[in-house]
């Protein structure tokens, strides 16, 4: 892979890696003995390991010019593999937290293994590690195919993918060591945040430049969604993380916003992370892999437009539904509530557009587990958004907030929609990217499908039950007008549900393990295929071998 880069690109890479190593060394020295110093060492090791890999190939011959006639799939391959690695790590943490809640002694009496540290390690490893890597990899795949153009660069895709990994590694290891700026889904400290800005801007530029090179007159819907995802996430990330470091030699920083403004900024971010990371980006994925696999036209172009603009417009108003009944002014809550309900229309319109696209392909859904993954994801998307709009109504939120009902909603989305869609997309993409006839074993895909669906359903039902039970216990009064149950009563009542959730999570993780194994075997052993037409072509159908202007 490194050999497929030009010598100049390899040298540029080396320079950046050495710069990174120097920064790592400086951080290690400044923060010696503290978690910040450990982060310095991690950066140093990360850059050093990659530099050695580049150095070993530095003198390899220049890659052939014909490569420009092919799509650039190397970063996609690495992105998919990384995504699967994060899936296992992140869900392992999630499962640990699930068992921990049922058997509190599993915290090992070690600070790093306490609930407060494992939990953000879980959420970050799954959302940003697993989800983010999958989004980057699939976006590279989708934008090239639907633009019929090679990526606008050979170096920047690597910079984005690998740089992004560094961010996630810093985030997850930081939480385990106790570095955390206490903003949910944005727990990483200032230096990791700054680094992500650099990576993300590069990503955006790369995306725009590739689209500018497209050989299709129109931009496909999936790309609108991917673009919205990249652009808005950049804006959210920057605004929510404006912070002043206490010193450049330590991890601690203070956020610019304070009090209720900070809370509003955080949940404007938090909700739109859901909207643009876990929804818009994933809709991009859905809009490509589902019709491709079903070999059916999208049900309605007009519905696509309507829902795209609906989603983009309504989501950004809805964040305040996370702060019902708080110090946030009442009027902001009403706004969030009403926009959340109106948001249901474009959400369901999108789910309907996806499911109606399957009309005429239901026999494929029956036979092909990969397509079934995507169909189930679309159903869970519909379910989760319905539930979300319902939970956003103040009176309902009064019951659900602070309970496991939120966790049920989260995982109906995260497992049923995000994870299951990723697996569907990966099963569809792996054979194409690695030039294989099919996945190594379709039986294993089938097994994975049922384990994933079963795991999700068990998880979500368990949490619905526990969440509603919690909510009701907390608001039950005696005849005398005092609370009937103490908090600890409601905690004890959760035990059976927490055990059930752990069982569901175990099934889900086993399914993931099977998927990883199957992907590995596909790469190593599945019969090869030659996809003659899978390459960039000009509008006239000729091979497109334009070179890319300097990055």
């Amino acid at each position: 892979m490194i050999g497929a880069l030009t010598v100049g690109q390899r040298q540029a890479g080396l320079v950046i890696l050495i710069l990174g190593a120097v920064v790592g060394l400086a951080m290690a020295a400044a923060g010696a003995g503290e978690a910040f110093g450990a982060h310095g060492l991690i950066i140093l090791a990360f850059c050093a390991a990659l530099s050695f890999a580049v150095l070993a190939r530095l003198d390899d011959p220049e890659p052939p010019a014909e490569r420009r006639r092919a799509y650039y799939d190397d970063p996609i391959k690495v992105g998919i593999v990384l995504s699967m690695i994060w899936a296992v790590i992140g869900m392992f943490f999630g499962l640990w937290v699930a068992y921990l809640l049922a058997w509190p002694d599993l915290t090992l009496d070690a600070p790093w293994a306490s609930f407060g540290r494992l939990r953000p390690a879980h959420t970050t490893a799954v959302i940003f590690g697993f989800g983010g890597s999958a989004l980057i990899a699939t976006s590279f795949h989708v934008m090239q195919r639907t633009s019929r153009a090679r990526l606008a660069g050979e170096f920047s895709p690597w910079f984005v993918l690998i740089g992004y990994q560094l961010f996630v590694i810093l985030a997850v290891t930081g939480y385990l060591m106790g570095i955390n700026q206490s903003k949910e889904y944005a727990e990483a400290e200032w230096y990791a945040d700054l680094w992500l800005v650099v990576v993300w801007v590069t990503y955006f530029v790369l995306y725009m430049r590739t689209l500018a090179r497209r050989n299709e007159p129109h931009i496909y819907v999936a790309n609108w969604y991917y673009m919205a995802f990249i652009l808005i996430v950049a804006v959210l990330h920057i605004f929510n993380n404006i912070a002043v470091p206490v010193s450049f030699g330590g991890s601690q920083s203070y956020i610019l916003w304070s009090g209720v403004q900070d809370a509003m900024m955080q949940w404007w971010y938090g909700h739109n992370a859901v909207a643009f990371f876990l929804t818009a980006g994933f809709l991009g994925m859905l809009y490509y892999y589902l019709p491709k696999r079903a070999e059916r036209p999208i049900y309605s172009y007009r519905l696509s437009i309507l829902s795209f603009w609906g989603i983009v417009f309504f989501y950004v108003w809805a964040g305040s539904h996370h702060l019902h009944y708080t110090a946030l002014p009442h009027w902001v809550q009403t706004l969030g509530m009403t926009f959340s309900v109106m948001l249901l229309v474009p959400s369901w319109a999108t789910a309907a557009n996806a499911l109606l696209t399957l009309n005429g392909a239901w026999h494929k859904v029956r036979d092909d587990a990969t397509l079934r993954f995507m169909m189930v994801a679309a159903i869970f998307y519909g379910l989760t958004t319905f539930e979300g709009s319902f939970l956003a109504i103040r009176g309902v939120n009064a019951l659900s907030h602070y309970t496991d009902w939120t966790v049920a909603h989260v995982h109906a989305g995260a497992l049923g929609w995000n994870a299951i869609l990723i697996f569907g997309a990966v099963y569809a993409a792996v054979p194409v990217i690695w030039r294989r006839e099919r996945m190594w074993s379709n039986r294993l895909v089938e097994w994975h499908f049922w384990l994933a669906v079963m795991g999700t359903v068990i998880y979500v039902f368990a949490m619905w039950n526990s969440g509603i039970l919690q909510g009701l216990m907390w608001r039950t009064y005696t005849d005398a007008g005092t609370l009937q149950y103490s908090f600890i009563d409601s905690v004890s009542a959760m035990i059976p549900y927490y055990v059930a959730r752990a069982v569901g999570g175990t099934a889900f993780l086993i399914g993931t393990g099977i998927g990883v194994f199957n992907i590995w075997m596909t790469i190593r052993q599945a019969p090869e295929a030659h996809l003659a037409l899978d390459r960039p072509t000009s509008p006239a159908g000729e091979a497109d071998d334009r070179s890319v202007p300097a990055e």
Partner: protein
Amino acid sequence: MSVKERDPLTGHQTTGHEWNGITELNTRVPRAIWWFIGITHLWALVMWILLPTWPLVTSYTKGILGLDQRELVAGEIEAGERYREHWVVRFEGESLDGIRQDETLMEVVSGAAPAIWGDNCAVCHGVSGAGGPGFPNLVDDAWLWGGSDEAVLESIRVGINSAHPETQFSQMLAFGETDILTREQIRTVVAYVQSLSGLADPPPQMREEGAMLFADNCASCHGEDATGVNDLGAPNLTDDAWIYGGDTETLFVTIHDGRMGWMPGWEGRLTQAERKMLAVYLLDVLPEEGG
């Protein structure tokens, strides 16, 4: 390649574009969606008219219902207080004995106290009141500050070594840390203390030495006979109730490093009625439930 085709299955035309084999139909937006838009937006509009919603330059639209979440909460709290008032005043007026004799009040205790206990006291004293290392058992007969109604009520009101201005203050001196006693002496007095409750049977000479050390250093607080002094919060050392533990190592730590238990004062946090309820609960109800 802008060729519009007709999809044989649905009969709809495609838009004429194609991306990597994907096409799109030109199907109209289903009527249900327009209805759906209409209903949700109408609902939103009604909410905007009824409730505070839109920001203005220095204020916001108040909504014709004139609702405000702070006033609503204040109103609900007041309504709750009014609802409870009829028994709250009676709790305030009665002594604990008076409460015990009043069946309706005892019903309130058995209904309300478990949750108040669970939310405020159980973290330290346990759901059953049996305590744990460092936190005394409240359902036995051993008391630091006395087990009378008044003493217990006072312990709850002001706490022990707490931030309450009238707190009960107590401290077990750190005899080792402050070099009042040598390690050897501490070991001797540990053996003596253990012998008081039959945990150890030291040789007569050691027992005698221990007794002397005790009389000189400890009796001022724990009493000549080591049965404790409630006014000082010093525990009885002759029974089998231990706060920190009666084993040799724990006793050594207790006497070497000293102890100073901390119990929050609840005045200001719990109402008088609630505190009385808890006192009755822990003196009468919990022990009966088997502690």
